[in-house]
């Protein structure tokens, strides 16, 4: 649903650039929302869902026009989206640092809010098959991508804002599954240092040009990347969610509920 208002960066001027329409990413994003139509810019006037604002956002148009006038368009911008009023711009991996430079110099975005990552791969379902924890919310099992799409599993995303113009936008960029790597923003925003260290330890993304990628939160000898979806929440693995203890077998009934037995044992 975040994709209804999908437009190309050149929406404001109507000059269709090359590479702004990514059939793969758009198709996946559309199938995910079952409502998005990432067709021609300017033809998205027909709202599919009532809650999606069909009118163009003037601030977004201004931001995109500024990006274009700074020469940041064409191959640099893969897709844009309106995520509930927030502008999301997906840039090419090689243009990641330039996106920050352009945002700081031409969009007056002097304020770095955060840099982080997303792992779009669904977490392995432990509930039904493994017979363990069933208390967690069940997420869809197929991989879908959010606003502005993605080419693969990993994305880095960041939010920058302007304290003078009072606007802001979110940048996203795809990173490779096998060798997740992107340029560092530290030369542009000094505050990127800690955010990138956190992202490095949590997702395993390498930020080229960062002055020192070392652990921020986790112990120095820690192995693994906890925020990746295939990294289990160990607390739930070693001990089932305490709420499960409530489901105890009635006296006299055969005890067939293995998880609750395990839970009772763990409780005592």
């Amino acid at each position: 649903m975040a994709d209804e208002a999908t437009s190309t960066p050149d929406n404001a001027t109507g000059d269709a650039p090359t590479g702004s329409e990514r059939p793969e990413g758009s198709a996946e994003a559309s199938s995910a929302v079952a409502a998005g139509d990432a067709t021609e810019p300017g033809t998205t006037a027909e709202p599919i869902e009532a809650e999606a604002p069909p009118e163009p956002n003037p601030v977004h148009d201004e931001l995109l026009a500024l990006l274009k006038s700074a020469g940041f368009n064409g191959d640099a911008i893969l897709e844009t989206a309106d995520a509930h009023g927030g502008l999301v711009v997906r840039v090419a991996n090689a243009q990641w640092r330039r996106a920050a430079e352009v945002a700081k110099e031409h969009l007056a975005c002097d304020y770095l809010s955060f840099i982080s990552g997303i792992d779009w791969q669904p977490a392995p379902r432990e509930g039904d098959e493994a017979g363990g924890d069933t208390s967690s919310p069940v997420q869809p099992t197929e991989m879908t991508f959010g606003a502005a799409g993605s080419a693969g599993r990993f994305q880095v995303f960041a939010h920058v804002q302007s304290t003078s113009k009072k606007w802001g936008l979110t940048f996203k960029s795809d990173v490779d599954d096998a060798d997740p790597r992107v340029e560092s923003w530290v030369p542009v925003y000094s505050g990127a240092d800690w955010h990138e260290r956190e992202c490095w330890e949590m997702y395993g993304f390498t930020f080229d040009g960062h002055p020192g990628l070392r652990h921020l939160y986790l112990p120095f000898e820690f192995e693994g990347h906890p925020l990746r979806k295939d990294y289990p929440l160990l607390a739930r693995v070693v001990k089932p969610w305490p709420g499960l203890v409530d489901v105890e077998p009635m006296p006299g009934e055969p005890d067939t509920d293995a998880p609750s037995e395990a839970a009772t044992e763990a409780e005592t």
Partner: protein
Amino acid sequence: MTAPTHASARSEGPGWVPQPGVSEPSVGMNVELDTGDMVLNLGPQHPATHGTLRLVIRLDGERVLTADPVIGYMHRGYEKLTEFRTYPQVTTLINRIDWLSSFANEVPFMDAAERLMGIEAPPRAQWIRTTLTELSRIATFLLFLGEMGLQVGALTPAFYGFRDREHVLNLIEAATGGRFHPNFNRIGGLKDDLPWGWIAETRATMKIVLDACDQFEDLVLGNEIFGARTRGIGIIPSDVGTAYGVSGSNLRASGVDWDLRRDARPYLAYPDLDFKVWTHPDGDSYSRYWVRLQETREAARMVLQCLEGMPAGPIMAKVPRIIKVPEGEVWVETENPLGQMAYYVVSKGATGPFRVKIRSASFSNVSILPWLLQGVFVPDVITILASLYFILGDIDR
């Protein structure tokens, strides 16, 4: 021949006799002491750190060469935990991010879920949320106004701060049932309406708060020693502050006129309230204290406005029993007592979020420390830490 050591020279013989070609061994009496590179470990347990922040400081005499904050002693992995919780369960977690103003933490997350679901809390709920958010701000800042005095050596303000904060915490407790962790917000509104007599009580308490602000102004800001300890200490230029993501009062004390209550997408009842955004051009520890003092006053005035304009009506929107949030993603930011608190929530249509990026204010506010502490004196380190005013739960999440 070998030169005798000082001890043996004294005990064994007649003492050192000058000899050609041999210099007398030095015993280190009038030598210049080497002051470089002493490593001072501040924390993890230190009163100025409000928790467990550790600073590894390399000193040259009294002067700081480098300061490296070591964080993570309280890392609880909330971003991971949210992926294993339903939306209503997440509220319990985010209460404990900034534990001094827990109510204010809940608001942006509720706002994010409501925006994704396309529902809106009724006006009365919005106004009560605004009131309680501002009360959280007052409680947080009153503690700061007292605590900052304590950190620079004035014991009395701390007692006044704690005493006056208690009045505000009593109000929050009366309305929500919890002094620190209200867990009072629901997706689509609030758990309960305000109790009888609460509005009159709050009005009386705001008088106490405004008086307390006057008292702090006389007692602390008017104090010459406090001024000497804080003026010109820990100056954050506005461009450095924004590049590090410093937000809230810390940034406004550097002259940046940016308050999300006014400048972000409109939220809660702030568009209907009349309030002033205070800034100070200096950017030093004194101005951070000054801005927070003014903002405490402003918050008390906003609470009074909220009580005047509080609309009648329901406090919960129509919300399904089992909350499923449609697919989408949203960025919601609010002006919390410590600065910009924001959530980037990605939903895949399940009962729990797929990814929640928690952007907490103190994390970025503290990340400027390596830059800010360079070249300052050791006592000023404490002043700067106190004036930045961070909460460890807000750094470590």
